[in-house]
């Protein structure tokens, strides 16, 4: 407002010195006019987006599945420097907010993204930056664990997008109707995922153990590039009893990841990929969204067998911090142009046992930018 007032004063004084000509009157409306037009355009785009999302929501309530619709805009997203945008966003949100302004900013955030402020651990003015507020902890007892010992609990606050059993050749997970991605692409080709050869789909022998162990010995490069025909995950099937669940975290949700069970984390993989947005619209329009984006995969064993968590970053929430490995840095600026880098791996000690975490223990968190 002060800028506009100053600008008006400047243009008025210039207009008076020019004798109040018509052209200066035109300049007078130029900035406010452009601002109003931009705001109007953004408003219309936002309204259209909300209308589209509402239609999708209504369709889902009627049982109609949203289908994959390749979008030209999604293709152009690849041209944007999303990593730089993400890092810039991280820089902005790590700026300290004046104490008096903090409650207003966080209340506005909560109103926009439906955050429950009653369960926030600290008073609002205790969070110096928006980033700190975003990765807030909760008051003691806000997330009680289900007492049933024979249950698997949710690792995050969020919305269930997909779940089910992984079956069939290639062990595919459906992104949306009409488009799927393979679990081995998500977790990495050297995953310990229990697979069996396609010809032995109903087999209950020791074969899967051998094959998964053999796969784990091969590096990502050797499997995917140097010898693509040597081991083809697409020709293998998952063992019976392999399930998946995809949970989407909205910006207002609590963004820390907890262990869904007593679990031994044996290996961590960090895939440095793109940073596309991961909202529902993006899932409908960007092919291979979850296997293109930067992610951290934790893999290990729980009493019932294999378990893995893939934490997938996005443009606004680009970095993932591991409580069990604080030195891991994600969303780093990259000099290389090559996108398809092999994942960086770390085996946790002691070898073969890994790091033990209890049900409900915090294992990671998503950070802004």
């Amino acid at each position: 407002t002060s800028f506009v007032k100053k600008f008006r004063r400047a243009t008025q004084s210039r207009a008076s010195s020019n004798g109040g000509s018509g052209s200066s009157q035109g300049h007078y409306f130029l900035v406010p006019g452009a601002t109003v037009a931009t705001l109007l355009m953004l408003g219309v785009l936002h309204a259209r987006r909300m209308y589209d999302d509402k239609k999708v929501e209504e369709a889902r309530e009627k049982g109609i599945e949203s289908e994959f619709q390749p979008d030209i805009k999604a293709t152009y997203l690849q041209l944007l420097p999303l990593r730089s945008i993400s890092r810039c966003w991280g820089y902005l949100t790590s700026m300290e907010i004046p104490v008096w302004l903090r409650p207003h900013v966080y209340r506005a955030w909560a109103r926009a993204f439906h955050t429950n402020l009653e369960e926030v651990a600290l008073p609002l003015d205790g969070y110096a930056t928006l980033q700190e507020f975003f990765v807030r902890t909760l008051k003691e007892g806000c997330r009680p664990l289900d007492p049933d010992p024979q249950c698997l609990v949710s690792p995050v606050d969020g919305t269930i997008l997909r779940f089910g059993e992984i079956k069939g050749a290639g062990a595919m997970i459906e992104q949306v109707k009409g488009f799927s991605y393979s679990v081995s692409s998500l977790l990495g080709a050297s995953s310990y995922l229990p697979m069996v050869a396609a010809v032995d789909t109903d087999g209950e022998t020791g074969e899967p153990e051998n094959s998964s162990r053999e796969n784990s010995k091969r590096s990502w490069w050797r499997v995917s590039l140097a010898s693509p025909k040597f081991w083809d995950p697409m020709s293998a099937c998952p063992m019976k009893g392999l399930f998946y669940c995809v949970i989407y975290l909205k910006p207002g949700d609590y963004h820390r990841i907890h262990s869904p069970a007593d679990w031994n984390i044996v290996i961590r993989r960090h895939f440095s990929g793109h940073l596309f947005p991961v909202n529902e619209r993006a899932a409908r329009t960007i092919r291979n969204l979850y296997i293109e984006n930067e992610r951290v995969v934790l893999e290990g064993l729980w009493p019932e067998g294999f378990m893995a968590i893939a934490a997938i970053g996005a443009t606004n929430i680009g970095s993932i911090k591991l409580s069990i490995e604080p030195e891991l840095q994600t969303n780093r600026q990259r000099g290389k142009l090559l996108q398809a880098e092999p994942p960086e791996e770390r085996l946790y000690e002691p070898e073969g046992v890994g790091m033990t975490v209890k049900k409900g223990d915090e294992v990671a968190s998503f950070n802004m930018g």
Partner: protein
Amino acid sequence: STVVLIFQAPVKNKDSSSEFKFCIQRGDKIRVGEALGRWQDS
């Protein structure tokens, strides 16, 4: 941001009578610590 959880869980076969079942629906809002699924000896 998104989290994908992949896990093995009990299924009915000749050695075991317990079976894992999800107790969620698509579109459900879930919170940390709430059950995703359970298995029980049938």
